[in-house]
Every structure is written in C-alpha cells, then in structure tokens.
C-alpha cells in the first residue's frame, strides 16, 4: 500500500506517456499491413510493399514534396520575422508593448478554423487566386508567434554578463552581436525553425481553407481518408516521425555531453 502511494504519480505518468504513443504505434504498424479492403483500418497481412514502393500510389510523393517545399520557405520567412520581434521584445522598452504582446498572442489563441476562414474571406473578397502563395502566406502568419515565443525564451535565459564581458573587452556592438549574442541565441533560433517547419508540414485546417486545388500532404491524407488511406502514407509519416525524433534526441545528447564535459573540466 505504501509502495503504491509512493509510486502512484510515477505510474500514472508512465501510463499517460504510453497513451500518447498508442496511435503512433498503430500508424507505424499499419505501414506494414497489406489491407484487405481499400481502407487500411484492420490488420490483414504483413507486407513490405508500402516501404519498397514509397511512391507507388499516385499523388502521395508529390503532395509530400509540396509540403516540404512550403515548409522550408515559410519557416525561413517566419523565423527571420519572429526572431527580429523577439529581440525587440527582450532588448528594448518601447511604446505599444502591450498591443505587440497581444498581436503575437492572438494567432496562438485563435481557433484554426477562424484563421483559415477569415483569410479565405480576405482572399475571396480581393479575388486573389488560391494556391501555393496563399498557403505560404497563411503558414508564415501563424508560425511567427511560435518563433517569437521560442526565441524570446532563449534570449531571456541568456546570461547578460557574457555580452557585458565582450563590451568590456572592447568589442563593438557589431562584433559583440556576431561573436557572442548570435552564437548563444542560435540554438533557440534553430529550435524555433524546427518547430515552425513541423507546424507548417502538419498544418491541415488553415491550409485546407486556403489551398484551392493545391494538395499538401495533410490535404492528401484528408482526401484519402474518405476513400481509404494507402499504407504508403503511413510509411512516409513514420519516416518523418523517426527523423524528427532522431534530430531532437541527437540534440539532447549533444547538449548533455557538452554539459558533462564542462562539469568535468
């Protein structure tokens, strides 16, 4: 009884983590399924077909590449714009701070269906053709805020004495920024960019409203859900999941090693 009480929180914590991963196990497992109907919903037979012919179904790979392209370009734009705002918020006092905070926060607090539909209302009223450009505009819009949050956290966690030291050693503002500030903030910016890419790559609702006839990977999945999702989609999503997990765990390992190396010095 005492053991249970002592470890109850830990046991629940582990159960909740397992719960988070159950659907992922299903997604990966069903990439090895040979569906017996057009719907890949119940287990039939083990098969490597989806993995050996990743692009075997028309439209899967082209939609995947479309999403990668859109993700790369929107991440680049949003990371630059968001990083600039984060620097302004942490480093300067200025008029309009409250409205700036609010303007950054609102896209994160607005349901995607409202953002998607309101942008569509704008594009329809302007008779602006829907497609790659409108989807990229929409993605940059909702990713900026997340970049600001991530970079701002990194900037706030920085030791201000490091920059003071650089100035004491007669580094000018430009040199201080290049050799001290920027390298220290870079991990935060890279993290923000990875987050931004994953948000863009996985976005469905806002893209769906503003895509017109453009098919991104999530839009392909949505369309396929009505007529049966081919296991190739599961295989590609599994690949993305494993790659992203490897990047994050790799980064964790590097920072853990560095901390240990510093500690033993």
């Amino acid at each position, binding site marked *: 009884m005492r053991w249970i009480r002592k470890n109850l929180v830990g046991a629940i914590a582990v159960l*909740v983590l397992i719960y988070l991963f159950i659907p992922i196990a299903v997604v990966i497992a069903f990439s090895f399924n040979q569906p017996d109907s057009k719907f890949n919903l119940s287990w039939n037979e083990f098969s490597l077909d989806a993995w050996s012919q990743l692009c075997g179904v028309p439209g899967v790979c082209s939609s995947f590449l479309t999403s990668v392209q859109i993700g790369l370009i929107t991440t680049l734009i949003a990371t630059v714009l968001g990083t600039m705002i984060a620097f302004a918020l942490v*480093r300067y006092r200025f008029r309009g701070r409250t409205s700036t905070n609010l303007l950054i926060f609102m896209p994160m607090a607005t349901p995607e269906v409202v953002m998607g*539909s309101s942008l569509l209302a704008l594009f329809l009223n302007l008779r602006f053709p829907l497609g790659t450009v409108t989807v990229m505009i929409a993605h940059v819009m909702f990713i900026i805020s997340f970049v600001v949050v991530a970079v701002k956290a990194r900037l*706030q966690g920085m030791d201000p004495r490091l920059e003071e030291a650089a100035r004491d050693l007669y580094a000018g503002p430009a040199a201080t920024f290049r050799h001290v500030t920027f390298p220290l903030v870079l991990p935060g910016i890279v993290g923000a960019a990875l987050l931004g890419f994953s948000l863009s790559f996985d976005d469905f609702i806002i893209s769906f409203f503003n895509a017109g006839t453009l098919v991104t990977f999530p839009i392909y*999945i949505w369309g396929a859900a009505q007529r049966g999702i081919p296991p190739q989609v599961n295989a590609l999503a599994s690949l993305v999941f494993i790659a992203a997990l490897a990047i994050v765990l790799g980064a964790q390992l590097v920072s853990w090693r560095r901390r240990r190396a510093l500690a033993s010095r």
Partner: protein
Amino acid sequence: MAPVLPVASVAPAPLEGQKRSSRSVYLLLIPGLAWLAVFFVIPLLTLFMTSLQKESATKPGTYVFGIQVSNYVDALSEYWPQFVRSFVYAGLATLIALVIAYPLAYFIAFKAGSWRSLMLVLVVAPSFASFLLRTYAWKTILADEGPVTSTLNALHLLPDGRVLNTGIAVVAGLTYTFLPFMILPLYASLDRMDYRLIEAGGDLYASPVKVFSRVTWPLSMPGVVAGTLLTFIPAAGDFINAELLGSAKDRMIGNVIQTNFIEFRDYPTASALSFVLMAAILILVFGYIRRSGTEDLV
C-alpha cells in the same frame, strides 16, 4: 498541429537591462507585425464584413455588401446545438486532459531527475507524426470489434454498445490531440515552483491531500489557466475529430463553418458563425489578461 512550447508563456519577463526605446526597435518590429496586421487582423475585419453581406438580387448564390444583422440570428438559431455541443465536448476534453496531465507534469517537474529532458521530448514527440493520421489511428483502436470497445462492453459501460461514431470517441480524440498543450504549461509552472514549499507543508504535518490543495494546486494556477486556455480554444474550433471519429449527430461548430464555407459556399452564414466563435474566445482571453496582464502571454 504540433504542440506549442508554451513553456515560456509563464516565464517572467525581466525588464532590467533593457535599452530605452530607440527608433531602430521599430525596424525590428515592423516587418513581422505588419505581416500579422495584414494577414491576421485585416482578415478578421473582412470576416466580420462578410458576415453582414446579403445575397445579390441579380446573381443568386453571390453576395454583395450589406449590413444584414439577421445573418447572425439565422445562423445562431439554426446552429446553436452545434455551438453548445462544441463547448461541452471541448470542456469535457479540457477537464479530462487536466486530470491526466497534472500527474505527468508533476512527475517531470519534481520526480524525474535526470530523465526530465527525455520525458519532455517524449511529450512533444507524438506531434512529429501526422495529426490527421494519429486521429485516423483512433478509428482502428476504437473500432467496434476492437479491444477497447469489447472490454468496455464486457463491463457494460457503453450505453450504445460502441465507442466509434459516438460523442465518446470525439471527446476522447479531442483529449488526445490537445493533451500536450495542457502538459507543457502545467510543467512550466510546476517547474518554477520552489519544491521546498511542498516539503514544508509535509514537515508541518499537513496530509498529502492538504499539501496539494493548499500549496501545490494554488501555486500551479498560472499553468492550469494557460493549459486550460490552450486546450479548450483549439478543441472548441476543431472539426477533424468530429469528422473522423463521430457520426452526423456529433457535428461541432468547426464542421458547420467548414462545410458552409467550402461546400455550400454560404459565406455570410459561415463568417457569422466563425465570428461568434472568435468573440467567445476573445472573452476568455480578455478574462485571462485582466487576471495576469500581457507580459506572460508570449
């Protein structure tokens, strides 16, 4: 939909060491804020204008400028059940998420030791797999002959004898989808808490329940509020879970907005509904700001 890292949303903003306002700060701010003004604020105004449009007299099926407030009355009288359902489903999902996220956040903050950063990665990791596919996977897990449904049926817990295509599946799906949005802010606020306060409670012979209700819970309130907002808001506007896991009887307001906008092209009705949803959310957000200010928002 990847989870946000709202860890910073509860971090304090140190104001010392900041430079005074100079003109160059606006060069940093303007490009990004202009993007948000043009593609977030102006669309909301356009949405409002569209919600008041009336049908063209000469070309049926197209809409022209108008101030037709009756659009709102019509939309709400037709779709109020979906509105109510959205708030009930999202409220239930938020409550369940809070109950199961709290122990995990508590464990990561206070008990995980060197496992802490790995556990945080594991909380974020599920969102690296496609959100649509994960929701679709629940169709397999909750299927009528599947293990979950047969277990619950053996215990006679299901009124309809099934989970999939009922409101239960929709709430379960919403809870799952937005759980990381609850875990991360809770963790952030627990992590900032001084664990010695909890220990002191125990040292003073308070029972664990009393320590929790008088010390831990009140101190974690910022995380509870932030997590509740970040879970409830997207859940109330979601239409994926209701579409994939529910039946026609479980439609939420997001489904109505989506079909009216994209399939029926009834822009004024869809815009009116979207705007009402936004207004409801704004009331929640401003309630939060009056409590906590804007500095901790981003």
